[in-house]
């Protein structure tokens, strides 16, 4: 992905700037730049406000959240809400919910990486009868509302006695059911020069060798984007766990939050918001570390669609 992004993204920057410089004086340019930053900063404030309010509220006593405090500051900041939130709910500690979320998310990453890369290699690099038909079907599943499959899937897993296990939530990841990632990797592999595998073939390498020792190492950027996104999507997933998990000991964080909401009914907003912050923390940390990757990934993948 990054290799494909480079030419398109660096080209305009190397050329002339987006506005016509010769028609503007230095002063006008500076005024324009100031106006730009003022507009952009105001917008940043608006966009980030809900997040900042959430974080600030997590540290505020309940009386100050319920009292409709718009402010992002309080005289009475404390960690009390986090202490309550970490206690958990329904006799299960929040650390347990964290662990459950982590197991599901890491399982999703491993499954998606394995299955999507292998399937993408078939689509991108092997010529076989029916390939384009299957590829078209794969693209079609990108547009398919997945609600059409949840009822029969539930019935199948129910009859197999797999409800209230993680298997229904993870099996799709190991079977490349997230077509988006297969597509992402196909696009990436198509960007790699064909001479690579031709040379390897002449040297007598089979598909397994070409895939594992040539393609996989070169696909690192695509694998990283896939890992980031499949982690975050699994971490935030609500419908899947809602359908399949019944015992609170197995709940991931989103379900735990819902349980918390049900049982406290806005009586303890502070703790609930503190728990919401905790639930988002890994995603926010991921974003801060990988923001370039994530944003570039979205921009190139979007265009390739």
């Amino acid at each position, binding site marked *: 992905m990054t290799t494909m992004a480079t030419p*398109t*993204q660096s080209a305009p*920057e190397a050329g*002339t700037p*987006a506005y*016509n410089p010769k*028609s503007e004086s230095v002063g006008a340019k500076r005024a324009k730049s100031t106006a730009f*930053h003022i*507009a952009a900063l105001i*917008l*940043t404030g608006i*966009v980030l406000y*809900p*997040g900042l*309010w*959430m974080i600030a509220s997590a540290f505020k006593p309940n009386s100050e959240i319920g009292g*409709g405090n*718009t402010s992002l500051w309080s005289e009475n900041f404390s960690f009390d809400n986090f202490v309550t939130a970490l206690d958990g709910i329904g006799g299960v500690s929040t650390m347990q919910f964290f662990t459950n979320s982590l197991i599901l998310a890491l399982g999703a990453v491993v499954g998606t990486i394995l*299955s*999507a890369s*292998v*399937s993408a*290699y078939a689509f991108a690099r*092997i010529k*076989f009868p029916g390939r384009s038909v299957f590829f078209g079907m794969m693209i079609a599943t990108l*547009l*398919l509302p997945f*609600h*059409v499959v949840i*009822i*029969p899937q539930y019935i199948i897993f129910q009859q197999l006695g797999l409800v209230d296990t993680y298997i229904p939530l993870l*099996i*799709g990841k190991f*079977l*490349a059911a997230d077509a988006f990632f297969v597509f992402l990797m196909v696009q990436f592999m198509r960007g790699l020069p064909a001479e690579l595998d031709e040379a390897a073939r002449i040297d*007598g390498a089979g598909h397994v060798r070409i895939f594992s020792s040539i393609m996989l190492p070169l696909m690192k950027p695509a694998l990283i984007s896939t890992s980031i996104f499949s982690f975050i999507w699994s971490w*935030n997933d*609500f419908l899947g766990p*809602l359908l399949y998990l019944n015992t609170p000991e197995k709940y991931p*964080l*989103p379900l735990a*939050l*819902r349980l918390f909401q*049900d049982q406290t009914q806005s009586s303890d907003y502070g703790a*609930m*918001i503190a728990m*919401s912050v905790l639930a*988002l923390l890994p*995603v926010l940390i991921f*974003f801060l570390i990988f*923001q*370039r990757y*994530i*944003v570039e990934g*979205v*921009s*190139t993948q*979007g*265009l390739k*669609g």
Partner: protein
Amino acid sequence: MTQSPTLSRRSTQSGPAPLRKSKRGGVDARAGYTFLLPWLLGFIALTVGPMISSLYLSFTNYNLFEPPKWIGLDNYITLFQDERFLQSVGVTVGYVVFGTPLKLAAALAVAMLLNSKRRGQGFYRSAFYAPSLIGASVSIAIVWKAMFGDSGPVDQGLSFFGINLGGWVGNPTMTMPMFILLTVWQFGAPMVIFLAGLKQIPNELYEAASMDGAGPVRKFFNITWPMLSPVIFFNLLMETIHAFQIFASAFIISNGEGGPAGSTLFYTLYLYLRGFSDFRMGYASAMAWLLVIVVGIITLIFFKTSKSWVHYSGDSK
């Protein structure tokens, strides 16, 4: 290590070339399907199979405990007499029709603002993108509910300007604007895609237009819009399809009930309630198939009409 077997193999194989070629075809077919196996299994077991069986179920009465009973088109007929269903259609269509264009307009406007070589562009881009990553989560739904609740910060902030709406969450006329704001807030993902598209428009076009005396409005409609139309089309299609499927936020904000007064009874929420609370799985399957058909028709209309306004320039790749 790789060198010696390579040479020997190459020398032995250089003779019977045609035979080798036909053999490769066979090997490739086998290799192709072997590599495709995970996806193929998933596609059959988790997508095609379930789709067929939900189509069958949609013509039956099925509650998970007794065998399905064939009732023909009854589910589909009942749907159109079911007021809650019609309400869920209304809520969802309202959300899609108002939310998606507003979100894309915000995304395009901000992308055009950011499309210049200025300091801090990367920071703004990341900051604006962040909500897209977390917007559909339960955490944000809880925060939204708190922010738009009775005497929450939104109510307080508006009261400061003399607008007294009270809490939005409990007010059936204000829940839709609240959800639309939630989706517009996530304008970052389409914005990033627009931004990448804007960067590919050659600057010479704008320079030439300036020389011809074109103002910003004409530049927008005669250069930016047509040049960006494939990206606009892509965003419009994807965002529309996604908007139909909103679930977690609706579930959390309305406590899984779709209230007040059914004003947040989104399509997927009603489908969930029918299928997994009432265990009317045939009925829910009919709803699911109707959604597939509607999304399919919309996609088709988008592609058909796109010919008149989406321009793919041949050499822009």
